[in-house]
């Protein structure tokens, strides 16, 4: 008989690590499942292996993650790394693949700490080899110490400046920054800074990174429109319009970024309710102020609950752990509330900069509503025009598109087309994103091979039967 965990956490980023450590301190039997081989999530990816010189390039906000990985190691929490979760069912049996074998574990309560995905940025040429997300550029640097030479950064948002500054520090400054935000976006953003100290801290950090980029004489083109990537079989030129003039910049790599969005795949597979959050420009799960969803026993913390960044994720993860401990009678309601209060205050401080960032760096409009011939579903190569034509034929929602074509049915299961399909259908049918809805997500959340199922661990399989 398989021993049931009090608490299983999916994801070993800041939210997952903080929740695991806190829950273990309160006496819970905790397991963390994570796809990566080492703890950290994407934000602190491979932080324990980074050399001192790489740490200097990446900066203190990155190396700070070693504090969380250390606490996780010391906590005695069972951390199953390289575990790809593909199903969560029946309150709660979690199926995953690890080292080529299927396995299952059971838990009373679960935390989905599955973080963020890059907001899809479908522009002409975005499927060409050499075009990557800015997050991918960061991962290359963090995990592998690999930098792109002659790269162009395209889009908007603080991550673009962070990676630009890191590339300068690494001695490979980007060839150019093609930025989509305008002066009026910035003015709108500044109205939100107000008296929030944390907002000003983030501003100062951003200005510091911009100064590094400026000192390296990296050309910046703000308010760029009509952006596309051209090349024979790989990215060779970024084209765009700037101040009324057409620009062409030769490159070998393009990093795209116009914000990140909550990764809701696992939450949706459990039937958790989601609503459209205007400020985030994406769907977010409906949660109470402990991070509990409308499926009892399922909690969500970190960027998967709506983008708040690494520090906010840490506080939210700890809050979940307190509530889980209280539910499991390991913590009195009084102590739970007492311990939660400083976390809630820290969370408010941490989120103070979000309204500024959201207003100053809005998503690139032409990528939210792409031209007809732009591919929006990378897996099945469906274009924006295809989706609009489905709407003309009476298609109202994303799940119906599957009756017309294969959008969202490829390997990525809609991760990089879902929000675009919702936006295109909502526009065409004059409906809100909430009325239009999102893909229904079903297990397996990630592809499973027959070999992995055949190699399913015997004891756990018996327990599941």
């Amino acid at each position, binding site marked *: 008989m398989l021993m049931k965990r009090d608490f299983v956490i999916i994801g070993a980023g800041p939210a997952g690590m903080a929740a695991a450590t806190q829950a273990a301190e309160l006496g819970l039997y905790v397991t963390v499942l994570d*796809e990566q*081989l080492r703890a950290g999530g*994407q934000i602190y990816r491979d932080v324990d292996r980074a*050399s001192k*010189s*790489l740490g200097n*390039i990446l900066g203190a906000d990155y190396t700070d993650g070693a504090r969380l990985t250390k606490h996780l190691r010391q906590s005695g929490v069972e951390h199953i790394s390289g575990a*790809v979760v593909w199903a969560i069912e029946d309150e709660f049996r979690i199926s995953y693949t690890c080292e080529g074998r299927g396995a299952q574990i059971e838990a009373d309560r679960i935390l989905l700490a599955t973080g963020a*995905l*890059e907001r899809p940025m479908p522009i002409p040429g975005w*499927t*060409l*080899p*050499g*075009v*990557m*997300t800015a*997050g*991918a550029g960061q*991962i*290359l640097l963090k*995990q*592998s*110490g*690999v*930098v*792109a*030479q*002659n*790269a162009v950064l395209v889009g908007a948002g603080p991550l673009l400046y962070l990676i630009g500054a890191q590339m300068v520090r*690494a001695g*490979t400054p980007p060839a150019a920054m093609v930025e989509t935000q305008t002066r009026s976006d910035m003015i709108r953003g500044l109205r939100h800074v107000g008296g929030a100290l944390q907002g000003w801290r983030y501003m100062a950090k951003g200005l510091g990174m911009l100064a590094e980029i400026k000192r390296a004489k990296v050309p910046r083109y703000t308010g760029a429109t009509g952006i596309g990537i051209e090349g024979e*079989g*790989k990215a060779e030129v970024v084209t765009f319009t700037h101040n009324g003039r057409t620009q062409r910049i030769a490159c*070998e*790599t393009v990093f795209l970024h116009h914000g990140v969005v909550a*990764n809701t795949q696992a939450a949706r597979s459990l039937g958790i309710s989601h609503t459209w959050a205007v400020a985030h420009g994406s769907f977010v799960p409906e949660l109470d102020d402990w991070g509990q969803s409308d499926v009892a026993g399922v909690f969500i913390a970190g960027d998967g609950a709506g983008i708040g960044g690494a520090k906010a994720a840490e506080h939210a993860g700890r809050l979940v752990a307190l509530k889980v401990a209280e539910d499991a009678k390991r913590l009195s309601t009084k102590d739970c509330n007492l311990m939660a209060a400083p976390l809630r205050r820290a969370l408010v401080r941490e989120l103070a900069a979000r309204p500024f960032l959201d207003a100053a760096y809005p998503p690139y409009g032409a990528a939210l509503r792409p031209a007809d011939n732009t591919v929006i579903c*990378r*897996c*099945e*190569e469906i274009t924006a025009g295809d989706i609009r034509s489905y709407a003309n034929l009476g298609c109202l929602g994303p799940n119906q598109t599957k009756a017309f074509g294969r959008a969202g049915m*490829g*390997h*990525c299961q809609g*991760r*990089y087309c879902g929000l675009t399909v919702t936006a295109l259908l909502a526009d065409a049918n004059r409906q809100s994103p909430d009325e239009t809805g999102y893909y229904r997500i079903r297990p*397996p959340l*990630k*592809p*499973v*091979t*027959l*070999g992995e*199922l055949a190699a399913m661990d015997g004891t756990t399989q018996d327990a599941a039967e």
Partner: protein
Amino acid sequence: MKTASPFLELESAPRVDVTWDGVPLSLPEEANLAAALLAAGVHVFRSTPVSGAPRAPFCMMGACFDCLVEINGVTRQACMLEVIEGMVMTRPSEMGAHADET
């Protein structure tokens, strides 16, 4: 073998031999496989089953599946693996990308 790559490795690590489409490559041991292939000058990982368009790593975090490669006969995401000595890799056949799954 080392071909021209726009990607630069900042740090050196012990290298091991693998093969990519029959060509011997020397990659850093235990490095992320997708990153190591990019730095070794591999710029097309696979072709799409729909149009045959070339693809290479896009997200580096296991979400997009553009970095699929066939390793010892099994289609895997290169960005979710580490370099192991003796890996035999090919571009996945068009059906291969779908055939291994349930």
